[in-house]
C-alpha cells in the first residue's frame, strides 16, 4: 500500500476509535457521540473520499476510498458515511458538487425507481433508504424513460420521508418524490441503476468485511479471557474449531470485498467483469455476515447477548447491511442468469476474464 493509503487508513482508524468506539457509544446512552464524530469525519475529508478532484475532491484512489468504509465497519460506525461517500461519487458522475453535511443515496433497492420528466422534475418512491430521515440532501438516480439516467441533488426539505428503522435501529425510510425540483441535475451517459447498485453493494461488502474482522478479533480475545471448567474456553477444541470456521468466513469476506473494490477502480461499471465481482462480493460477504455473527454470539455466550456489550452493534449492522443495495438472493439470481447464458463450457472463460 502507498503512503497516502496508509495515512488515510491511520487517520480513519484514529477518528473512529477516538470518537466512535462502540463501547463508549453504548456507555454514552444517547446520541451525543454523533456530532463530534461526524465533524471529525468531515474535517478529515473522509466523507468526500469519492468526490472527483475537478469538483474539489482530494483524488483518493477508489480502492483506498472503499477501504475507509472497511475501517468504518471495524468500528460499526452508525452514521451515513458510506452513503455520503457514495453520493460524492454519484453526483461527481454528473459533474455536480456535493454539498457539506450528510447525504443519502437513492434508490438503494433494484425495484425502486425514480423518474425525471422533460421539465426536470423528479417523481417516484424509494423503499428502505438508509438514513433517509437524518440527512440534509439526497443524491439520486432518476430515469427519463428510455432516454437514459440523470443524476440529481435534492434537498431533504423537498421530499417526503416515511421514517423507520433497520434491524440495527439505524434510520431507514421510504423516500417519496412528487414532481420534486432538484437543486441540480445532469444527464449521464453510460450510467444505469445497475451502476449504483454495484457501487452500493461493494460499499456494503467492505463495511461488512470490516465488521467481521472486528468480530473475529473480539471473539478470539474473549475466548482467551473467559474461563470455564477451569480453563480459558479458547483451549477447548469445539471453541477453536468454531473460531477457525469464522476465520474462514472472515477471510473470504475480506478477499472478495477488496477484490471487488479493486475491480471497480480498474474497470468501468458497465463491464461484465465488474458485475461479477460486485455480485459475488455481496453474495459471499452476506453469507459470511450471517455465519460470522452467529459464531461470534455463540463464543460470547450470555454476555454478548446484552445491551451493554458492544457485540450487538456489529452483529445487528451485519444483518442490516446484507439487505441494502440488494441481498444475497437477488444478486445470486442475477449472477446465475449471467453464467447460465454462457453455457457449461462458457462458464470458465467468463470467470478467468473477470
Amino acid at each position, binding site marked *: 500500500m502507498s503512503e497516502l493509503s496508509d495515512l488515510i487508513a491511520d487517520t480513519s482508524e484514529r477518528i473512529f476509535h477516538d470518537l466512535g468506539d462502540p463501547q463508549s457509544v453504548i456507555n454514552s446512552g444517547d446520541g451525543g457521540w454523533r456530532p463530534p464524530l461526524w465533524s471529525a469525519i468531515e474535517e478529515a475529508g473522509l466523507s468526500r473520499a469519492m468526490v472527483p478532484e475537478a469538483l474539489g475532491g482530494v483524488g483518493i484512489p477508489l480502492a483506498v476510498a472503499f477501504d475507509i468504509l472497511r475501517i468504518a465497519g471495524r468500528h460499526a460506525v452508525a452514521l451515513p458515511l458510506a452513503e455520503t461517500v457514495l453520493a460524492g461519487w454519484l453526483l461527481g458522475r454528473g459533474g455536480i458538487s456535493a454539498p457539506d453535511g450528510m447525504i443519502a443515496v437513492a434508490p438503494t433497492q433494484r425495484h425502486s425507481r425514480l423518474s425525471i420528466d422533460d421539465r426536470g422534475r423528479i417523481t417516484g418512491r424509494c423503499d428502505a433508504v438508509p438514513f433517509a430521515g437524518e440527512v440534509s440532501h439526497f443524491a439520486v438516480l432518476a430515469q427519463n424513460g428510455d432516454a437514459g439516467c440523470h443524476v440529481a441533488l435534492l434537498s431533504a426539505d423537498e421530499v417526503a420521508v416515511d421514517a423507520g428503522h433497520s434491524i440495527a435501529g439505524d434510520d431507514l425510510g421510504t423516500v417519496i418524490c412528487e414532481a420534486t425540483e432538484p437543486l441540480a441535475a445532469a444527464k449521464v451517459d453510460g450510467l444505469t441503476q445497475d451502476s449504483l447498485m454495484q457501487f452500493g453493494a461493494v460499499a456494503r461488502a467492505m463495511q461488512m468485511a470490516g465488521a467481521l474482522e472486528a468480530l473475529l478479533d473480539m471473539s478470539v480475545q474473549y475466548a482467551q479471557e473467559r474461563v470455564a471448567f477451569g480453563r480459558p474456553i479458547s483451549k477447548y477444541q469445539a471453541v477453536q474449531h468454531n473460531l477457525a470456521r469464522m476465520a474462514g468466513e472472515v477471510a473470504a469476506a475480506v478477499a*472478495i470485498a477488496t477484490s471487488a473494490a479493486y475491480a471497480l477502480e480498474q474497470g468501468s461499471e458497465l463491464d461484465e467483469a465488474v458485475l461479477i465481482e460486485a455480485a459475488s462480493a455481496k453474495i459471499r460477504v452476506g453469507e459470511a455476515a450471517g455465519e460470522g455473527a452467529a459464531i461470534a454470539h455463540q463464543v460470547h455466550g450470555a454476555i454478548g447477548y446484552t445491551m451493554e456489550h458492544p457485540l450487538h452493534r456489529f452483529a445487528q449492522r451485519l444483518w442490516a447491511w446484507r439487505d441494502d443495495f440488494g441481498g444475497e438472493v437477488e444478486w*445470486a439470481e442475477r449472477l446465475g442468469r449471467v453464467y447460465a447464458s454462457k453455457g*457449461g463450457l462458457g462458464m470458465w472463460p467468463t470467470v478467468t476474464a473477470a
Partner: protein
Amino acid sequence: MSSAIQFDPVRLPEEAEALRVEVRAFIAEEVAAGTFELGQPGRAFNLAFSRKVAQKGWIGMTWPKEYGGQERSFLERYVVNEEFLIAGAPTRVHFTADRQSGPVILKYAPEEIKRKIIPRIIAGECTFSIGMSEPNSGSDLFAASTKAERTNEGWRINGQKLWTSTAHQADYMIGLFRTSPPTSDNRRHGLTQFLVDMKADGISTRPVYFPDGSHDFNEVIFDNTLIPDDHVLGEIDGAWKQATAELAYERSGPERFLETIQVLIALIELIGPEPDSRAAEGLGRLMAQMFTMRRMSISVAGMLSAGKEPVLEASLVKDLGTIWEQKLPALARDLAAGLPFDRVGRAEFQKTLEHAIRIAPKLTIQGGTTEVLRGIIARGLGLR
C-alpha cells in the same frame, strides 16, 4: 486477526494470461487429436500426454534453468494448473512431482541427485508418490514408525506405508521414515525424508481399492530395503522443519476447490440459458463461492510468488475450498431435481454427479483433514 490474515487482491499478470491462451489452444489440439477426452475427472495416468506437456516446457516451469526449468513465475504455473484441472486433463504422471516432489529435491537433495532426477521430471517421464501415512499414522504424521536404520551400505528401511496414492505407478517416493525416537521435549523429532527408488529390492505394493472399485491407493511394504546415503533429503531427524513451505504450496492450489467442478459445468448445461429463479439463484450462489475461492487461491499464489510463507492463509484456502467442493455435488443434485427429468444433458450430468458424490468424502481428508487444518488455523489465531 485483521492484521494476522492477509488476502490482498492479486491479479494474474499479462504474461500469465498470454500463456492461458496457449494452454487452451494446446488442450483443444490434444482433445482433437484424441490424446484425451474433455472433462474426465480424476487426473488419468497418460504418458503420451505428459510428454507433450513436457515438450511445451510446462513441467517444472518455475525451476532453475540450470536443471532444465524455465524460471517462469509461480503465477504462470498457476494458470497451466487451473486450465488442466478445468479441462480434466490426464496429468497424473507429473502432477505430484511438479507440485511438490521436484521442489523438495531441488531444495534438499545432493547435487548429483538433482542432476539425475530433475531433468527426468521435466521430461514428463518420472512419477512421484508421497509416503507419509501408515496404518497407525494418518493425520498424526509424527506417529510414523516405519524405520530407517543406518548401516555401512546406507539405510535399511522396514515397515509399511498405507493409503499411498500412485505408488503402483511411481518411479520414486518421497518417504518419511523414523531415524530416531522422539525426544521428551519434542515429539516431532526423529523423522527424516528420503528419496526412495520404487524399483529397489524389498519394496512391494498392494492395491487398496476405493469404494467405486478404482485403484489409486496402495499399501507399500518395505522389507529391508536399502537406500543409499545420498538419498537422504535434508536434515536427519529434522523433517518436521522442512514441511512448512511445502504444505503452503500443496494446500492452496486450484485443485483444492476444483476437484468436482465438472458437476458444475454439467449442471449449467442442464439448467440451460434461461433458468427459472430457483435454478438461477442456486447457480449464482455456487458461482459466487467458486469465484471467491479462486480469488483467495490466487492471492496466496501471489504471496508465494513474492517469497512469503502464507501457511495460515493456505490452510484457510484448503479448509474452505475442500468443504465447498465436497458440498457442490449435493447442492447440484438439489438444483437438478427441480428441473424436468427429460432435459438435454441429464445423462451426462447424472454420470458426472455420481462420480463426484463418490469422491466427495475423500476431499476433506487428503492433504490434511478439516480437523487438522482447523487446528492450524486456531494456532494462527493465537488460540493454541
